[in-house]
């Protein structure tokens, strides 16, 4: 058995893989630097609902009303240089990854984006797949308590609450009002209170906590 396993590993040449990874990186670079800004501008200016372009083995699709989300996703994807490496690590038989990086598309970047957020910041996540509606009265810096409802996700007409997991301060929004979100998606960044206290922010204690429900 071990001998066979080794054969499997050296079956694909490292050079082929390296070349493929390099091509992917070049494509990602072009997407991020040239294509994406132009596309976003074009979509915003036009009356189109969706734009799709193909570049090499990559495909970029921007769609309204989730346009902002898509841009964020694409940007996250473009900057996630670990993509190709994760899927096609040298030494692994690449049997399963038929078409390589083109296929690792929209779903990866959530975890990539998560990894990119500032360490120490937690987030309120989506309780379900649906359309996101944040509470309008909350702004960055608003103090919230664990269990507070800071918005909801509309699941076929039924509201599912977005709940704050910890006491803290509202940080930046990671999703737009009206955006389609998936289960577990990070929606609002939070600065936990302990951390705020340690950093000596005098304003933190002074702000009133918001009521549990809007």
């Amino acid at each position, binding site marked *: 058995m071990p001998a066979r396993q080794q054969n499997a590993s050296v079956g694909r040449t490292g050079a082929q893989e390296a070349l493929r990874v390099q091509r992917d990186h070049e494509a990602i670079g072009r997407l991020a630097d040239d294509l994406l800004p132009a596309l976003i501008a074009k979509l915003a200016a036009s009356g189109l609902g969706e734009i799709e372009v193909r570049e090499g083995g990559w495909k970029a699709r921007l769609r309204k009303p989730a346009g902002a989300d898509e841009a964020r996703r694409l940007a996250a994807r473009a900057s996630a240089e670990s993509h190709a490496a994760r899927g096609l*690590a040298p030494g692994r038989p690449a049997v399963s*990854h038929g078409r390589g990086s083109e*296929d690792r598309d929209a*779903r990866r970047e959530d975890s990539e984006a998560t990894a990119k957020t500032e360490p120490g910041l937690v987030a309120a996540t989506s309780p379900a797949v649906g359309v996101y509606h944040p509470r309008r009265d909350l702004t960055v810096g608003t103090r919230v308590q664990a269990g507070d409802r800071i918005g909801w996700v509309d699941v076929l007409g039924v509201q599912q609450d977005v709940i704050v997991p910890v006491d803290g301060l509202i940080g930046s929004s990671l999703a737009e009002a009206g955006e389609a*979100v998936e289960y577990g*998606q990070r929606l609002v960044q939070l600065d936990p209170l302990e951390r705020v206290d340690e950093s000596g922010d005098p304003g933190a204690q002074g702000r009133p906590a918001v009521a549990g429900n809007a």
Partner: protein
Amino acid sequence: MFTKILIANRGEIALRILRACRTLGIGAVVAYSEADRESLAAQLADEAICIGPADARHSYLSAPAIISAAVVTGCDAIHPGYGFLSEDEGFADVVRAHDLTFIGPPAEVLERFASKEATRRLLGSHGLPTIPGSGMLRDEAHAIGEAERVGYPVLIKPSAGGGGKGMRLVRTPRELESAFKVSRSEAKAAFGNDALYLEKYLDDNRHVEIQVAVDRFGNAVHMGDRDCSVQRRHQKVIEETPSPALSNAARKELAERAVRAIAAAGYENLGTLEFLLDAKGDAYFIEINCRVQVEHPITELCTGIDLVALQIKIAAGEPLGLTQADIVSTGHAIEFRILAEDPGKDFKPQGGQIGAYLAPGGPGVRMDSHIYPGYEVPPYYDSLLGKLSVWAPDRAQAIARADAALREMLVDGVMTNIELHRAILANQVFIDGKVTTNLLDRVGSAPFVAAGNR
């Protein structure tokens, strides 16, 4: 035709449906649970969306989560795969209420065939021989009376569901008395429905099924039979086509009767009619599966028809586009369910991380699997790692190719039943094509495992 399909399933069948969508030029969104974030289907999909936590009740079995995912991703149809919500008429109905198409039989067709007992009567009235049995059982006394009439041994069967849950073999009134309550509560727990009926149990029976396809316009064809007699505790392990238990004349007659009856009963889309064959070779209809079957690849190998693509086309309202004369089944195909379980420990399902994985190749070899090196097998779902299917011009060559492919297959990191498959292939009863559904359970798997290790 659809523009975009939501794939509401996981594992190898999610991948299979994705491949069919790509072949047809239809967009696809893979709906996955948190535990399947790293699944191959989710990775390969152009679009994927997390619909809920690992617990299937809140993801793959959650109609709101699945339909919401289809709506927000702009899909116009949902493919349920097999298991989960694939035969749930309530789900099919809600899908339609949201202006989406359920890829499978329409809700009212699923409803008509939802009760196994009623289906048996319906198809019996359309000329299919059915196994002697009872109507719905009112209580224990009724059950004992019916069992006397049918003749022991009898199987107690839940009218809803499948997979052997709630099923009991009883040989005496005393056994029936004690098993009745257990079956009723098991059925209630598993399917939310405790309706039971009795069926005459055939010792040494064989399981043969007929694949059919019916379009919205009533055009109906069959794609031959599959023999699924290699079973362990009512779970199929190896399937082959054509069945070695049927003569060509008997095969043709059974398939033609099946397709006539199902068309007359108003069925629509892909379906499988399951029969038991007794020792004399007489076939009795037992139930219909209103979905794509796990074992569909062997029919595809012999007929050259993409069954999942056909299923999608029928659901889209297209005509079959082929007649019975167009369907020619050639050669012999065998499928092996590769399961993450330990045959040495009573087939206990195994979780774990796949180390090395090498799919076998060569002429007539097909591997349907969602695993890859480094893939973590989630402990929440079934233990199916993939399906090896082989095709050859005849059965003997198919067995030889299968053995070579099983030797070549490498799955490291979890225990599998690959060696059990090889042992079964080497067993004279299998070689002679004489396996009955009770064989593995009767002799136990130990002799097979021991033989395979020699």
